[in-house]
């Protein structure tokens, strides 16, 4: 019971903070040209306008699809390589130079190259997300795999585990929490990069909405787009966290609650 009220209190504080910020924004924006800073009311009106024209739903779905596909494919590439790099010092020596070179090259810097290579269709956007996701998940996976407690491995060996068993029954489940966390961080990266990908050579998507609205001086549309990213990112993160608490919870007992 005590815990429940604490949760309720925390929720009430969050709600109050949001309300205060909205109110402050409303007052602040009243003194400005809506072109520079639209009021919250105007932004809501813009969202309704976009929704009724079926623009907003389409853009959201298109951006989400790009983010999701890139995130899944990028993780699928990163996890096996990361596991290998984590358990074999030779595999690690082979991939390390590339990892630590490319992870400092922001995906945004590669936007024009990717359009050149993959065209102006879906491929360039999804590939850019894949690029942004891969290195985060890879490093997290490799770090996790290399830090599986050696006593787990030795203990399993004395119980009759062979190399195959050690990999699939110890290393893989033992690395799961690192993969999970890496994918959670990578999800944020995927949202970051989709704006850049959709800013250039796109005809749809939330990123396109933002960049396009700017050229028509629809600052309220820009705000709607920006909020969409925040809300979508927040919801995706919560879904991932919910999966962690339910489906994957047995693998995540060593993780904190954040």
């Amino acid at each position, binding site marked *: 019971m005590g815990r429940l009220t604490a949760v309720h209190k925390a929720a009430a504080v969050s709600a109050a903070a949001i309300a205060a910020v909205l109110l402050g924004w409303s007052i602040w924006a009243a003194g400005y040209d809506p072109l520079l800073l639209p009021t919250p009311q105007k932004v809501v009106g813009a969202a309704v306008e976009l929704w009724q024209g079926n623009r907003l739903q389409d853009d959201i779905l298109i951006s989400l699809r790009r983010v999701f596909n890139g995130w899944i494919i990028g993780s699928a590439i990163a996890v096996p390589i990361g596991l290998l790099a984590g358990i074999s010092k030779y595999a690690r020596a082979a991939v390390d130079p590339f990892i630590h070179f490319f992870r400092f090259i922001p995906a945004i810097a590669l936007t024009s190259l990717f359009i050149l290579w993959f065209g102006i269709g879906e491929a360039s956007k999804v590939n850019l997300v894949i690029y942004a996701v891969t290195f985060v998940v890879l490093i997290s996976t490799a770090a996790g795999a290399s830090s599986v*407690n*050696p*006593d*787990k491995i*030795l*203990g*399993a*060996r*004395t*119980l*009759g*585990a062979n190399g195959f*068993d050690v990999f699939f*029954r*110890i290393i893989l*489940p*033992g690395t*799961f929490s690192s993969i999970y966390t890496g994918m959670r961080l990578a999800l944020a990266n995927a949202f970051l990069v989709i704006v850049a990908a959709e800013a250039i050579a796109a005809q749809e998507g939330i990123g396109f909405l933002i960049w396009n609205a700017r050229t028509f001086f629809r600052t309220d549309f820009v705000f709607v787009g920006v909020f969409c990213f925040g809300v979508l990112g927040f919801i995706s993160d919560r879904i991932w966290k919910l999966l962690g608490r339910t489906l994957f919870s*047995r*693998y995540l*007992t*060593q993780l904190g609650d954040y």
Partner: protein
Amino acid sequence: MADEQREIAGASVSFSDVSLRYAASGGDSPPVISNVTFEITAGEFFVVVGPSGCGKSTLLRMVAGFLPPTAGSLTVDGRSVKGPGPDRAMVFQSVDGPLLDWLTVRQNVAFGLKLQARPGRRGRRSFDSSEVDHWLSVVGLTPAAGKYPHELSGGMKQRVQIARILAVKPDIVLMDEPFAALDAQTRRLLQQQVSDLWRSEGRTFVYVTHDIREAALLGQRIGVMKAGPRSNFREIHTLDLSYPRDEFSPEFGQVARVIEEQIVEEVMTTWDG
């Protein structure tokens, strides 16, 4: 089931002129243990004590097959040790390390049994869940069978470790300071349990500890190691005391004092360079 267990009398261990040098520390570093020769007989409870860093754990890890000797020969029942295997299962000091966090207590205890039940295993045995029940009840963890390791106390985790290795019926039970991280009361209860298990199971136990009272409570023989490097046994004591041991008896006190003095002397040799 009880009769079947009594048939297994454990395995013997033989060290013959065994030395070990860690490869990672470079070829010119002195060996951790040097020219060790001794035997552990089948079914014996052998305890290894000695100052920190003398290579007690190294010795145990060699029997487990984690560390091959750099020189000499190490055999179990006359066969050269080639690597780890379920005939020599080990309980680790680390309370949080060896257990699989994503498996319940029951699944942890079943882990080794399930490995041995896999097709194509040498000496394959079919998986029998009643064996898991048996070992859970032996260590008193039946009520906690559905819990995950992070929900257990340190003492319970060590009992899971004990149950999961006894379940695979090893010839040799290796224990590396298993209770060092536990509180005194829990440690006392578990020591008693280990002693009882050794007597009922009839396996060879090799037990490393820095706790002299624990050594004298459990061991038929106690090997005192010299300070490292180039460590070896200083003396192997045979304890002519019946079980269960009375730690307040004069004989017990005498043995403990002699061993204590020897270890202190060994520690002192490392103090003035």
